[in-house]
């Protein structure tokens, strides 16, 4: 029997750790593709040029936008963990769980900036 714990989750720092983890996994899944494209620069210039010409397609831009947003989320939530662990807390329910919102807002702002620049 699995005892339910679903309502012990769902607080702000829970979502921060989920966001941190999922963005990390998504970025890790992207890395092999990134290296593959980089390797084309050495091994196969023509395919690389073909791929890079795709970079102007809207779909590609949206993919890039997703990556930028994931990177910002992952970085902001990672910095949050460092602040949690390295800077002494003032009290037990220290407001720093709200750093989640700093990360989310940073991701939205940088995401919008990227979109405006891209199109």
């Amino acid at each position, binding site marked *: *029997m699995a*005892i*339910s*714990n*679903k*309502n*012990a*989750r769902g*607080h702000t*720092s*829970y979502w921060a*750790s989920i966001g941190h983890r999922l963005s990390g996994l998504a970025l890790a899944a992207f890395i092999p593709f990134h290296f593959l494209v980089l390797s084309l620069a050495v091994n196969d210039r023509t395919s690389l040029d073909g791929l890079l010409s795709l970079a102007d397609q809207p779909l590609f831009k949206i993919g890039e936008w997703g990556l930028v947003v994931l990177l910002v989320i992952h970085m902001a939530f990672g910095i949050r*963990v460092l602040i*949690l*662990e*390295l800077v*002494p*807390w003032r*009290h*037990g*329910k*220290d407001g720093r*769980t709200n750093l989640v919102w700093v990360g989310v807002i940073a991701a939205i702002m940088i995401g919008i900036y990227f979109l405006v620049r891209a199109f």
Partner: protein
Amino acid sequence: MTTLRVKIWRGNENEEGEFQTFDVPARENQTILDVVTEVQRVQEPGLSYRFACRVGVCGSCAMTVNGKPRWTCRTHINAVAKDGEITIEPLRNMPVIKDLTCDMTEFFQKWQKAGGKFDGTITRKDPVATLPPSDLKRQKADAGIECINCAVCYSACDTVNWDSDYLGPAALNRAWTLVNDERAANRQEVLDKAIGDSGCSSCHSQGNCTAACPVGLSPSQSIHGLKRMSLLSFLGKGI
């Protein structure tokens, strides 16, 4: 609402069992523990559960209520019932003995593993130690000292669920209070245990423990304090 529908886990130590549903009269002032007691007194004398003080001091009455561990003697029905329904299960991360009682042996063994035993520098023949409340270390120890050993945080912790060796939030919170206690003779030893295998570094900083602790302690704060100390001691700075 005149009646509550209460689903209670009835099971044995082999994790076999099922939910049994009871209809219990809804009353003006009623805690989860009142409801469980009423079921046991009136409807099902074979129901096993634990309690002692009924006022949030002893830490023995914790159960999982609607998917969240809680101290049942201080949890009012109105705060948790959804459409007059309540589901009550034992705590997580500990072996069930029967129904709502679980075996807390390992939970307390982990307190010992984390260095939770107080070892003083003076004897009872010496004058009582003076502890100025303004002392920063004392304030850190005080922040975690009121633990009632209820295991609510331990039950809420997903890391304990994934790694059964992880010492868990309560034991590490205890270690943090000792590491900051000027009267303790073995502070370095406690720190070494708390930062050792399956110690504070296993914590994922998710904070379920702090969100669930019924007396408002913050095991996360204590664990992060230990992590910081472990880094400082790695860099050669003693406690």
